[in-house]
């Protein structure tokens, strides 16, 4: 089951990519667990998505909490707190 993951702003710069498709491993069914799963790649991932880093996430273009559920076919995005307006 694949999800599309998008990265924006400083996260995008640190990771060197703006999007990817990920096969959701079994057991990864929330924003928080997806973040841990990506963090486990190490290097820039461990740093950009570190526990202490204040990040926001969206599922299917709705701002979501870490506990929000994700499933195959979803569009997930990770980004810093927004600074528009």
């Amino acid at each position, binding site marked *: 089951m694949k999800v599309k993951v*998008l990265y*924006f*702003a*400083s996260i995008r710069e640190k990771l060197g990519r703006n999007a990817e498709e990920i096969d959701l491993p079994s057991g990864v069914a929330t924003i928080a667990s997806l973040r841990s799963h990506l963090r486990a790649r190490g290097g820039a991932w461990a740093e950009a998505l570190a526990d202490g880093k204040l990040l926001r996430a*969206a599922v299917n*273009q*709705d*701002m979501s909490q870490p506990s929000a559920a994700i499933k195959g076919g979803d569009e997930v*995005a990770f*980004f*810093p*707190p*927004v*600074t*528009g*307006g």
Partner: protein
Amino acid sequence: MKISIQQQDFDLGAEVKAISGNPKIGAVASFIGLVREVEMTLEHYPGMTERAIGKIVEEAKARWQVMDCTVIHRYGALKPNDQIVLVAVASSHRGDAFAACQFIMDYLKTQAPFWKKEQAAGGARWVEAKDSDDKAAERWK
């Protein structure tokens, strides 16, 4: 209702005129955000920006009497004094127009997926979100 995420500049007068036609409208309140002091580039999340602002406007309509509303937010490269964002609300009375306009701006600052990168002397740096913006949104809860 009009929500536009665009690169090009906008004209306040034209936008206000466009939402003032209904004879029941007695008040139009508007806000313009400008670039202050530095050059910057605005990034956004296409799709989510329109959706998030749409949700904010729907909430404003649920809380106040909003007869019409326009939100325009630019993205891309902007210079000092450039216009960034417009919020204009038309209501029968000024209480609703003022409150809805401020509410929409306060929520946009914390919910709309834009990110500013400023050109500073030492190079480009991403602007950090401010606590004061979160507090401004909180007061409407």
